[in-house]
């Protein structure tokens, strides 16, 4: 049984320009201990989709309009706010992109870690302090006693993100959702943080949903990948299948458009022409159609469902998924 099963999740925002369907019927699963990446560009709905799992969408203007989020046998969307609070930070931890804005600037690091423990485990002061010390050691921060008394502004960006991970791990969660955890960090620090997250999730058997736009990070750390475009999952599969035999024109084009560090300079990049779609004005057809070089007539009138294509477990939301295969992908 999967740890998490998302079924037909829909999240909308009511804005002045109209209703934005930020997440438009996504379904996926996460197995215990697995690392699943959600990849997409700005506005693809990857962050909103993850925040919706924890019901962290501000309402208004946002609203989860349909779907189920089955976590360890319970539908999170049906829980009371009280029950939901028990899950957040306890069974599901969260690591955000910008550690400076997600840590409280007026509380010490120690207080922010023990707050979670007191809230969820009703542990006493001494027990909390002991556990906070242990957590800091776990995330590789030396001199824990001194660090616990410091405030977020006294720490570097990488150190703050380690603190965020310590807080996410504090109550022994089964799942951690990391939303662009390293985007704000330099590349050598990014590598430290990602290695740390990978080591800890493996060691503690925690499942990880990592949301990112960085295709390299996905290739290095993810077991499975969901590619999002305009609020929908357009392709899913193992990292291996997605990178070596993509079956959706967007995935193919995305992989072709990135310059690669491990290859000598090629003649020219092959970009995806056009602009990302305006989510308030999505038509009836496939939202990638205006930029797609494989589009046919039916793409303008109906939406392709996510259906099996390619390797076992791989699926693509494209009418021509079976025409696309290795040859198109390899050229990346």
């Amino acid at each position: 049984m999967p740890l998490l099963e998302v079924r037909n999740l829909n999240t909308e925002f009511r804005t002045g320009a109209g209703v934005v369907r930020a997440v438009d019927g996504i379904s996926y699963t996460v197995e215990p201990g697995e690392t699943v990446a959600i990849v997409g560009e700005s506005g693809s709905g990857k962050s909103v989709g993850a925040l919706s799992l924890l019901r962290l969408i501000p309402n208004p203007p946002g609203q989860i309009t349909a779907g189920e989020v089955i976590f360890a046998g319970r539908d999170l969307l049906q829980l009371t706010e009280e029950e939901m609070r028990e899950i957040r930070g306890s069974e599901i931890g969260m690591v955000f992109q910008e550690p400076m804005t997600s840590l409280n600037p007026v509380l010490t690091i120690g207080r922010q870690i023990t707050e979670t423990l007191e809230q969820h485990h009703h542990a006493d002061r001494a027990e909390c302090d002991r556990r906070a010390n242990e957590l800091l050691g776990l995330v590789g921060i030396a001199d824990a006693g001194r660090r616990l008394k410091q405030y977020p502004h006294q720490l570097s960006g990488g150190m703050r993100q380690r603190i965020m991970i310590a807080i996410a791990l504090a109550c022994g969660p089964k799942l951690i959702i990391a939303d662009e955890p390293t985007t704000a960090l330099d590349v050598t620090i990014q590598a430290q943080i990602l290695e740390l997250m990978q080591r800890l999730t493996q060691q503690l058997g925690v499942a990880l949903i990592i949301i990112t736009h960085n295709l390299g990070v996905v290739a290095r750390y993810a077991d499975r990948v969901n590619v999002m475009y305009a609020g929908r999952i357009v392709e899913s599969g193992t990292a291996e299948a997605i990178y070596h035999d993509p079956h959706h024109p967007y995935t193919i084009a995305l992989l072709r458009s990135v310059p690669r560090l491990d290859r000598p300079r090629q003649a020219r990049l092959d970009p995806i022409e056009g602009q990302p779609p305006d989510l308030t004005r999505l038509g009836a057809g496939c939202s990638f159609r205006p930029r797609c070089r494989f589009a046919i007539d039916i793409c303008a009138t109906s939406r392709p469902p996510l259906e099996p294509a390619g390797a076992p477990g791989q699926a693509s939301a494209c009418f021509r998924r079976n025409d696309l295969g290795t040859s198109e992908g390899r050229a990346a």
Partner: protein
Amino acid sequence: MSAATNGASPLLEVRGLRMHFPINEGLIARRHLGDVKAVDGVDLTIQHGETMGLVGESGCGKTTMGRCILRLERPTAGEILYNGVDIASLDRKSLMSLRRRIQVIFQDPYSSLNPRMKVGSILSEPMRVHGIEADATRRAARVRELLSLCGLNPNFADRYPHEMSGGQRQRVGIARALALEPEFIVCDEAVSALDVSIQAQIINLLEDLRDKLNLTYLFIAHDLSVVRHLCQRVAVMYLGRVVELASCDELFDNPLHPYTRALLAAVPVPDPTVEAGRKFQPLIGEVPSPINPPPGCVFHPRCPIAVSECTQIRPELRELRPNHWVACGVVA
């Protein structure tokens, strides 16, 4: 012969550039506490028509280098010879004519365009300031020409920046840089804020313009894959100093400085098979403060191959391979 000299009469030659920002305390009795040594002795040359990459992590001084070359900062020490003229010490009036020939493209297409000006005024402002194309009709024609040169519809002249996407705005930023027909452009993280699919479009545009208009670029970036694609030579900076300088393929295929090696290893490649085969040990620690950089080699506290001399002797750039310069006392 200095590290930077390379062939006959370069377009730009930077010699011993230092940019120190003083840290003062107290409003009335000002006390000088120290200096942030953002750039601390850099030599660099750029030939006509060349694209020079400048890479490094936050705080390494790459942006300050660019700002000194644009004379947005007056350097603390050193020479910046542009076509043989030292621009580090030019007065305001002489700077004006220089600025027609050196232009800049900024990172953030949202904050670098005035939201209250139409695109047409944004593009004609530099011409008005410098008194070229005094005739309004001719200026409007030039604006339309610039827009189509950068792949935009000439009618965009009547739009405001907020009516455009990020990629389109960056094209306006590029068109503005071209308005005065410069020969040298400093691209400061010009594609970093863009989504992958749009980034490739802008990289191609920068390449096309370079070929068509015979431009010279200083391409400042932290994304090494983009630099590998776009540049002919690369300088790697760490804590205000250039630690390695070589032609692009030589540097990426055969990095010699331990910092460059760690930096390249930290970048994940978008290919799970390649990633699975890479052995990778993240660099320990974080970048020290540029207020009080370590003695000797600034990289020694994090360096995996440091020896005791590294803590005392500051290594100068040495030419270890033809045209491949490395500031390390250990590698040979």
